[in-house]
C-alpha cells in the first residue's frame, strides 16, 4: 500500500525523496555494472580497430536504428504517463504506461529477430560459427561476443523495466497510486529511462561507427 506513509517516515515528501534517492544511487550502480563491458569494448576496439569496423559494417543497421526509435518513443510515452498521473488523469496515464510496455515488447521482439538473423549467418557468441571463416580479422569474434553480452544484458534490463512498469500499471488500475502519490511511477519511469540511455550508447557502438576510427 504505497499511498500510505510508512510509520518510520515523517511525511510523504520525505518518503518520496528517500525512494527517489535510493533509485538514483541504484542507477549509479547500474552504470558501473555496464561500465565493465563498455571498458572491455573500448580497450578491445583500441586493440583491433579494423576488425571492429568490419563487424560494425556487417551488423543490422536498420533493425538497430528502428529499435532506437522504439525506445525513444517509449521513453516519451512513459514520461508523459508520469505527467498525466500527476495531473490526476489515471486512465490516460495507464494507457501510456501500457503503450510503453508494448513498445518494450516490440524492442525485445526486434532484438530476437536480429539474434536469429545472426545465428542464421553463423554468428554465435564465443567466436563460434561459419561467419568467422570469411571474416577472420582479429576483433570480429570479440565484437560479436561483446555484442551478445551487452545487448543481452540490456535486453534483460528492458525486461526488468517492463516488469516494473507492469507492476505499476496494475497499481494505477487499482487506484493505489495517483496524483496524491505519483512518485512510484516517476521512479519506475526513471529506471526505464536509464534503459533508454544505455541503448543510446549501445546504438553507435554496435551499429554506427564504421571501421578505422579509433587511433
Amino acid at each position, binding site marked *: 500500500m504505497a499511498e500510505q506513509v510508512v*510509520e*518510520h517516515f515523517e511525511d510523504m515528501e*520525505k518518503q518520496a*525523496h*528517500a525512494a527517489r*534517492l*535510493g533509485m538514483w*544511487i*541504484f542507477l*549509479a*550502480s*547500474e552504470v*558501473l*555494472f*555496464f*561500465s*565493465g*563491458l563498455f*571498458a*572491455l569494448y573500448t*580497450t*578491445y576496439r583500441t*586493440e*583491433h580497430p579494423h*576488425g571492429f569496423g568490419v563487424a560494425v559494417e556487417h551488423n543490422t543497421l536498420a533493425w538497430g536504428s528502428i529499435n532506437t526509435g522504439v525506445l525513444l518513443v517509449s521513453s516519451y510515452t512513459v514520461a508523459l504517463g508520469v505527467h498525466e498521473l500527476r495531473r490526476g488523469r489515471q486512465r490516460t496515464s495507464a494507457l501510456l504506461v501500457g503503450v510503453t510496455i508494448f513498445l518494450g515488447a516490440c524492442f525485445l521482439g526486434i532484438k530476437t529477430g536480429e539474434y536469429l538473423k545472426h545465428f542464421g549467418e553463423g554468428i554465435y*557468441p*564465443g*567466436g563460434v560459427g561459419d561467419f568467422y571463416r570469411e571474416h577472420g580479422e*582479429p*576483433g570480429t*569474434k*570479440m565484437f560479436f*561476443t*561483446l555484442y551478445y*553480452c551487452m545487448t543481452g544484458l540490456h535486453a534483460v534490463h528492458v525486461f526488468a523495466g517492463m516488469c516494473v512498469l507492469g507492476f505499476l500499471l496494475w497499481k494505477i488500475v487499482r487506484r493505489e497510486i495517483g496524483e496524491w502519490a505519483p512518485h512510484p511511477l516517476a521512479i519506475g519511469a526513471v529506471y526505464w529511462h536509464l534503459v533508454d540511455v544505455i541503448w543510446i550508447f549501445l546504438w553507435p557502438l554496435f551499429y554506427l561507427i564504421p571501421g578505422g576510427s579509433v587511433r
Partner: protein
Amino acid sequence: MTTIDVGVIPIPHGRGGVRRETYLNIAHTVKSWALTTDHKRIGILYLVTTIMTLGLGGAFALILRTEHLTPQMTFLDAYTYNRMFTMHGIVMVWLFMIPSIPTAFGNFVLPIMLGAKDVAFPRLNLLSYYIYLAGVVWVLVALWMGGCDTGWTFYTPYSAHSPSAVVPTVLGIFILGWSTIITGVNFIVTTHTMRVKGMGWFRMPLFVWNLYAVSIIQVLATPVLAISLAIVGLDHWFDWGLFDPARGGDPVLYQHLFWFYSHPAVYIMILPAMGVIAEVVCTFSHKNPSSYKAIAYSALGIAFVGFLTWGHHMFVAGMSQFDAAAFGVLSMLVAIFSAIKVFTWVLTMRKGSVVLRTPLVYFFAFLFLFVFGGMTGVAVATESLDIHWHDTYFIVAHFHFIMVGGTLTGWLAGLHYWFPKMTGRMYNERWGITGATLVFAGFFLTFFPQFLLGNAGMPRRYYYYNPVYQPLHVVSTVGSWLLGAAMLMTLGYLLVALFAGPRASANPWDSRSYEWYTPSPPPKHNFTKEPVFALDPYDYTVPFPGVGDEADGSLARDPGGAANG
C-alpha cells in the same frame, strides 16, 4: 582499578519487577525473527551468520596452516589444499569481512545513532539478508561440489578452464554482490533522509561517516565485480572466451576489472573497522576526536581515491610502464588518507582520560597491526620492490595484517563495545582483556614470520615448499593455533555472558555517542520517545545527561560503578 565489572545494573528487569519491553523480548517465535523488518534483529541475524562464516573460514585457515607443518604432504593432498585456500579466501572476503561490520553493527546502530526508528527501506534490508543467505548457500553448494581451485582472484584463463566448481562459486559471489549493493543503497539513503530533526552532517557520530563512505564504495564497486565474474562464469560454462587470447582476448583486462573492484573492496573491509575504532578511541579516551573533520573527510577521501589505485596489484602482470608509474604515484597519494586517520586516533588520546577496557585493547592491537601492515603496504606499492614481493608470502602477510589485523580486530572491538547495547548483558572484563591479548599474540606469531618467508622468496599458494623455510612455517602454524584458541575462548565467554552475564546499563562506558541514549537493549522503535540529543556526540566537557526515561530503570549514571578508572 576498583571493580572490573563495569556498568552493571544491580536490579534485573528494571524497577519493581516491571518487565521492560525490548526488541529482544517483544516476540520469541522463529517467524518473528525470520520475517522481521527491525534493523536490530536483522543486525543480529547478520551477526550470527557472519560468525558462522568466520568459523568456516577460520577452520579452513587452521587446516591450511597445519598442512604447512612439513614441506611435503602432511595430511592434505595438493588438490584439496588448492581448493581449500581458495575457499578460505572466498569465505573470508565475501562471506565474512565485507558484510561483517556494516551489516551486523551498521544495521544495529546506524538508525539509533541517527535517532531514527529504522533504516529507510526496512523490507529491502530483510531482502538483502536473504540474498546474502542465498549467496552463502551457493558458495556452500560449490564447496559441496568439491570447491573451486582458482584462488579468490579468479584469474583468467585458469578460471575459465579450471576443472572445479567455478560456476557455482562465482554465482554465489554474484548474488552476494547484490546483497551488498542493496545494503549500501539503504545506508546512504538512511544517512541522507533519516537523521533526527536538527542533526546536521557534522553532528553525526563518526561511525556513520565511515559507513556512509563504505556504502558509496559498495554501491559503485560491487557491480564491476558482478560483471567481471559473470564473464568468468560465461567463459567457463560456454567457453565464450572474452578474456581468451586465442580469440583476441586479453587476460590482463580481467585483472584490471577485478582489481577495479577489489582494491576498493579492501576499503569496504577496512573502513567500517576504522569507524568502530574511531568510536572506541573517543569513548575510552573520554575526549573529543582530535579532528572530527579529518576523520570524516578522510573516510570520503579514501572512498574516492581507493578507486584510482587498483593497478598496483599488477606491476608485474603485464601492465604498461606508463600505467605502472601512474598507479604507483596514485597509490602513494592514497596512503596519506589512512595516515591522517591514524594520527587523528592517536592524538585523540592526548589530554584525554584513557581507561583500558577490552575494546581499547583491541584498538591497540588494531593500531599496531594496521600501522605496521599499512606501512608494508606503502613498501609494496613501491614499484621496484614489488617486483620481488609480488605474489610471495610478503603480500600474504601484508594483507592479513590489514584484513585480519585491521578488520578482525575492529570487528572484535565493535563486538565488545556494543555487546552490552545489543544484548543488555556485560561480559567478564578480565576474560575480555586476556582474550584480546591472546588474539593479538596469536595473530602476530602467525603472520610476522610470513614477512620473512616472503622476503626469502617463498611464493604464495605453494603446496610443497623448500625445506629451508620450515622453521618459519612451524612458528606461523603454532601462532595460528593460538589465534584459533583465542577466538574460541572469546566465543565461549561471550556466550556465557549472553546467558548469564550481569545486566548492562544504558551507557556502561559513559560514552556520549547517540546509541547510548537508549536503554540496553533498546526498545522496538529504538527510543521510548522522540530522542533529543542535547550534546555533541563527542562532548565530554559535561556529564552525560542520562537516558531521560527513568521509568525503564536504566539511567546512564547508575551508581553501580560504571566506567571507573
